[in-house]
């Protein structure tokens, strides 16, 4: 009988991000303090208030077969690239796992927006007969999960959580549940996003959610800083391979970390605005701790969602402080990666796992002058240089428009 006591471990990692085309290059760039943010130079952007973006470091279309790439939306391409990396890294493919016992959970916030909008242009300009027959499989939000499922041969179920910027973290949580419920033996989880296009840019800008610090791209994403003015849209994907600990050990797999627990809540407060005290976020973190059988004192590090918006960061600081206390080393890696929306929670899970492995907390870039908010002032937010520390448990939290809150607890292997 599988219960919440089932030991679930991480045996593979993959990522393609604004900082690098794989996990190692991304992690190295993060610790080196490099930024993935640049200013858009295309003509369309000149009337836009927010002109910054964190583009992928490596073009996914060049990493997969040409014919395959042209049938995949960019959000599917990056998902497949990250997933194939994680799958190879885990060695699960060579281990001969029954395909009927392999599942995929790959979330996205926006889905195939580039296909949707691009094919709408085709429709307007050339008429309905010229719309691609691949339009629907390329734009559907489960498209990345389905493409990944085909890529790794998963026949045990393919799922696509959609909870805005919590989607990637929600996918990790679903993977944990699937293993605990014995619905699969190996689950590839992750998140993907690729929606750099005028319409999403205009929509987020209209919400006043994006940074307009156009003249200083690398300094624009500044979580918890007094001068923060919004997030920077990023693109990319990250993936993790999860298995039950006993099975992973039996096949001699490398084990990066344990996924010890997860919690999920809804704010029930507003469609987009976070609860000002982070009430729902705090409950998610507390639930994840209970699920992991840990107490706040056990947690040494938090990879914060912190997108660099004025209201989101202070609400999260309050949530971290109320649920965990003031001793945890907090970092906000979106200061360098930008905000990968539906991929963010998966990428930041990768960072949390590598922080545990290497016993180092990446610095929050651009945190020159922490906000006067009491919770921000109270927290130990790592800045300047990465900080070496000794810790055996860490939290990654993610929140999404819609009031979605997910917290994940990872522990050392």
């Amino acid at each position, binding site marked *: 009988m599988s219960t919440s006591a089932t030991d679930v471990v991480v045996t593979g990692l993959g990522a393609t991000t604004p900082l690098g085309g794989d996990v190692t290059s991304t992690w190295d760039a993060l610790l080196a303090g490099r930024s993935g943010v640049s200013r858009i130079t295309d003509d369309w952007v000149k009337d836009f208030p927010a002109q910054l973006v964190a583009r992928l470091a490596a073009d996914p279309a060049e990493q997969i*077969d*040409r*014919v395959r790439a042209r049938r995949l939306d960019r959000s599917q391409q990056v998902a497949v690239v990250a997933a194939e990396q994680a799958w190879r890294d885990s060695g699960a493919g060579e281990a001969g796992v029954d395909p009927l016992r392999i599942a995929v959970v790959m979330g996205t916030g926006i889905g195939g927006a580039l296909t949707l909008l691009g094919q709408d242009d085709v429709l307007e300009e050339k008429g309905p*007969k*010229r719309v*691609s*027959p*691949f339009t629907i*499989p390329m734009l559907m939000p489960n498209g990345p999960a389905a493409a990944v499922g085909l890529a790794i041969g998963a026949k045990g179920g393919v799922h696509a959580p959609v909870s805005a910027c919590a989607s990637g973290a929600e996918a990790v949580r679903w993977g944990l549940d699937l293993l605990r419920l014995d619905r699969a033996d190996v689950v590839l989880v992750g998140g993907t996003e690729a929606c750099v296009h005028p319409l999403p840019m205009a929509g987020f800008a209209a919400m006043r959610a994006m940074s307009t610090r156009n003249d200083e791209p690398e300094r624009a994403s500044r979580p918890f800083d007094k001068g923060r003015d919004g997030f920077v849209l990023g693109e990319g994907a990250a993936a993790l391979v999860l298995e039950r600990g006993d099975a992973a050990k039996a096949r001699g797999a490398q084990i990066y970390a344990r996924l010890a627990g997860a919690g999920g809540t809804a704010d029930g407060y507003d469609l987009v605005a976070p609860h000002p005290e982070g009430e729902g976020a705090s409950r998610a973190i507390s639930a994840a701790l209970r699920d992991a059988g840990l107490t706040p004192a056990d947690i040494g590090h938090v990879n914060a969602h912190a997108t660099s918006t004025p209201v989101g960061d202070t609400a999260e600081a309050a949530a971290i402080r109320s649920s965990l206390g003031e001793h945890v080393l907090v970092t906000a890696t979106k200061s360098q990666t930008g905000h990968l929306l539906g991929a963010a929670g998966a990428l930041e899970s990768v960072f949390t796992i590598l922080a545990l492995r290497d016993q180092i907390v990446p610095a929050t870039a651009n945190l020159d002058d922490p906000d006067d908010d009491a919770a921000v002032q109270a927290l130990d937010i790592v800045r300047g240089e990465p900080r070496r520390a000794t810790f055996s448990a860490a939290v990654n939290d993610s929140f999404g428009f819609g009031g979605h809150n997910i917290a994940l607890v990872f522990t050392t292997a």
Partner: protein
Amino acid sequence: MSREEIQTGLAEILEEVAGVTPADATPEKSFTDDLDVDSLSMVEIATAVEDKFGVAIPDDELGNIKTVGDAINFIEKNQG
């Protein structure tokens, strides 16, 4: 346009849309069984054929085109 020219043009389309090696695009080959061209790709191929040869393939005819030779015959018969 001669049958050879049509076959060459069709092979270019098959390479672009479905990754078929041009030398494999010979008349006896079945799109689905030999060349691994699925039904959605056939729709793309029909659009490309219209662009290249000026020959529209109606949906009810598309289902009857099973081989490369069938496509060459249809284009040859209907070209302007």
